[in-house]
């Protein structure tokens, strides 16, 4: 199954995305800032919403006792684009620089990244820490692109 990554850029790629993923609400772009904390039970916010093709600055502080990070997962575009033209990827991902590797307790990190083009979709995010897979609050985040 083809996977796309939006951080490559380029005119031809932009044209491909424009053809494959017409904007669902007619709006894209903008700048957003999020400040999150995470502890051993969950994120301070498990719902983030921005426009597609927007620039996001996100700061994460680990308030827990174990390492925790921030990782947005790929997702199917089918709910928003059920009739994709041939050749269009069926999955969409955030760029690689949208990930924060697990931080030590008390540590903080800030990242800046661009959101992908397919919108009207919710991308799940999680902590990605070594001991986090069984903790619901660290695996049920939603990053909504409008």
């Amino acid at each position, binding site marked *: 199954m083809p996977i796309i990554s939006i951080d490559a850029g380029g005119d031809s790629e932009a044209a491909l995305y424009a053809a494959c993923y017409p*904007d669902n609400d007619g709006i894209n772009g903008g700048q957003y800032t999020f400040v999150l904390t995470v502890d051993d039970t969950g994120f301070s916010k498990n719902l983030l919403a921005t426009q597609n093709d927007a620039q996001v600055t996100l700061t994460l502080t680990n308030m827990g006792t174990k390492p925790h990070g921030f990782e947005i997962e790929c997702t199917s575009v089918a709910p928003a684009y059920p009739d994709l033209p041939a050749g269009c990827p069926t999955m969409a991902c955030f760029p690689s620089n949208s990930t924060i590797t697990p931080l030590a307790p008390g540590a903080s990190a800030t990242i800046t990244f661009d959101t992908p083009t397919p919108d*009207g979709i919710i991308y799940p995010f999680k902590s990605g820490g070594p001991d986090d897979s069984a903790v619901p609050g660290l695996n049920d985040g939603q990053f909504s692109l409008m």
Partner: protein
Amino acid sequence: MRRRQRRIRGCGRRAAQLAPVFGALLVPGLAVAQVAPTQPPVPVAAPAPSAPPPPQPTVETVQVRGVAPYTPRGLGDIRVDRETLTASPRQQTSEMLSAAPGFFVDHEDGEGLGNDVYLRGFDLDNGSGIEMKVGDVPINIPMHIHGQGYADVNFIIPEVVRSIRVLEGAYDPRQGDAAIVGSALFDLGVPERGYQFKATYGSFGQARIVGIAAPKEASDETFAAFALRETQGFGEDRASKSASVNAQYGVDINDRDHLRLLATAYAADAALPGVVRQDDVNAGRIGYYDAYPYLTSYFPENCSSPSCAKPAQGVQASRVIVAGDLDHAADTGAFFEIAPWFMWTNFLSRQNYTGNLNSSNLQPSLQSLGDLWQLTNIETAAGVTARFRAAPVRVGGFAEIMTESGVSLRVGSTAQSKDLVNPADFDPWDYRENYGLRTLDLAGYVDVDARLWKKLHVAGGVRADFLDVSIDNNLAGIVPPIPAGALQGSTTSVAGIAPGPRGTLAYDLAPGLSPVVSAGEGFRSLDAGSLTLCNAPTIRLTGVPASEEAPCKPGSPVSTVTSFEAGFRSVAGAGRFTTTLAAFQTNVANELVFEVASGGLETENASTRRGIVGSFLGRPTNWLLVSSALSVQTATFNTLVAGTSHYVPNVPAMVWRVDANAHGELFRLGDVPVTGRVGVGYTLIGGKHVNDNIIAPPNNVLNGLASVRYLFVEVGFDMHNVLGLKYADDEEYYVSNWSLQPGQGRASPMVHIVAAPPRTSLGTLTLYL
């Protein structure tokens, strides 16, 4: 002989002036006027003083002023008279536009918010995109926080609307800002003279009282009217109330000068229910006409329980207008008019579309307190319109030419803001926009209307608007997270010129049959957010990350629209049957779409509309009127590769309307006639794209009325949505997390519905004194 001039009541002075080029009539003892349906006024020369007449029996000589056969500006240049406007029931003045071919005006929002208007492939949210005027006073607010060109005409009391001239397309140089898809010009007057008192009561506790004073000794233009309306609303959170006063005074200063004064005041306060998700409705978790229980309640001071809570979503709006209009008809046939005006508007709305998805930009660590958008817009504006029409000129025996030049000025000062507020107490938890605006629109135009060889009509001209906007961005320079007292601000000035060539060509192919071709360019102002962020439209290329966008370049304060149409008009049966058919295309440089994530309208990329609109208006007898119009259209963005459609949301592929009204004498009681009226209006709206993959189900709307009048008493009954169908006035597809449980629910994309009213019955008693 006694000679005097008499103005014809019922036509109005401006509509009742006869161009000498077509001949002034002197009709002994008889005054007859024929009012062409679409024509601007044309001045007339007074008859030259004649020599003293020879002795003869006394004869009253009456100068009759009619309207010259001006060239209609396109096939959608139509004056809708009151008989057509009232053929089927319409509760609000904005809904009267549905009587014009191709128009449909919804009724989703109740009081205080401008209605959405569908016309020629446009879904004009809150009236933005159609220029509206009452007399010469512009109703649109160019840079309103809710959307550029926002217009709410419901401050006009429907009973005092004498006619509406609609112009579909921008083909007349007189059309100004916001005439993206056309114009609607409201003419006020009360033809039935005397005093009227009207009381209405019906479904959902709706009550309305109207009083009109129209002294018989004054012209149709003179009246004073008030209207009060209150309703509990259908379903939850829809109570509203409003009050409106309209007063107009028209007086002949002398035989050549006429003065008209207009004053209006309006205030409305309405609760809004917000949206419901289609999946919640289908699963029975919420009713079609309900409101979500969480994030929608406001707790006033000393109230902490749901029993005393009030709806958090709602709108408050008010408007005051004072205007004058002085016109002068010169001996030569020239005509001059000057019309100053003043307007003050105040608008506040609170609406939540998405639940609680948003985060605070200024305080990013703050938890979401609900996506309740509070929009405020307070504007003080004034302006003047002046025009001079030269006396008609004949060139040889083949050309008749009329020229007109005019200017208009509009200056405004606005304070506007867009915040996210806590529904519980209305305290802001994020500031998104806060502007002080100073706007100036200075326009001039020249128009030529020529008839060549009696059959060829060439009309059009050039208009140019110089727009200057100064914007104080009170949130500029603020970097989150904000420390206390960090407000900084900045000022941006943008100026530009919007040229607008416009023209119409018509040929009288046969008696009553005229092919018509029109083209023109219109414009509308851009929003303050676009101008301060980028100094250009907020157009971004899909697929291009924000970090790779080219730097913004200084742009124009306006976006343009180009319209073309071709078709024919047929008039038969001595004007009793009118048929039009037009194919049109409209290219919009900068689309305006509703965006839930920002709580209002946002600009987007270019788009194209194509379609066909046909209309028929028939009066086969003097007691029957039938009007029908069908429009079929597409509306797509221009941003994609060939073969991939991308539809502008919420534009119906088809709108079909039929109005029929029968009226006349039913029988007599003694020598007194008992008259009656019955009317129906049917609308079919189909093929509305919610997004590229979802098409909304078609809407069938049937309304009916019946009334009986005996002497000064009339009893009427109106029913709206006779079929009792549940249908959506508005449908949008987007992500939300509305929940029937407390707390922040999971988000998911879904169709969101704003319900149209269910079956509504209203009874009315009217006294004519």
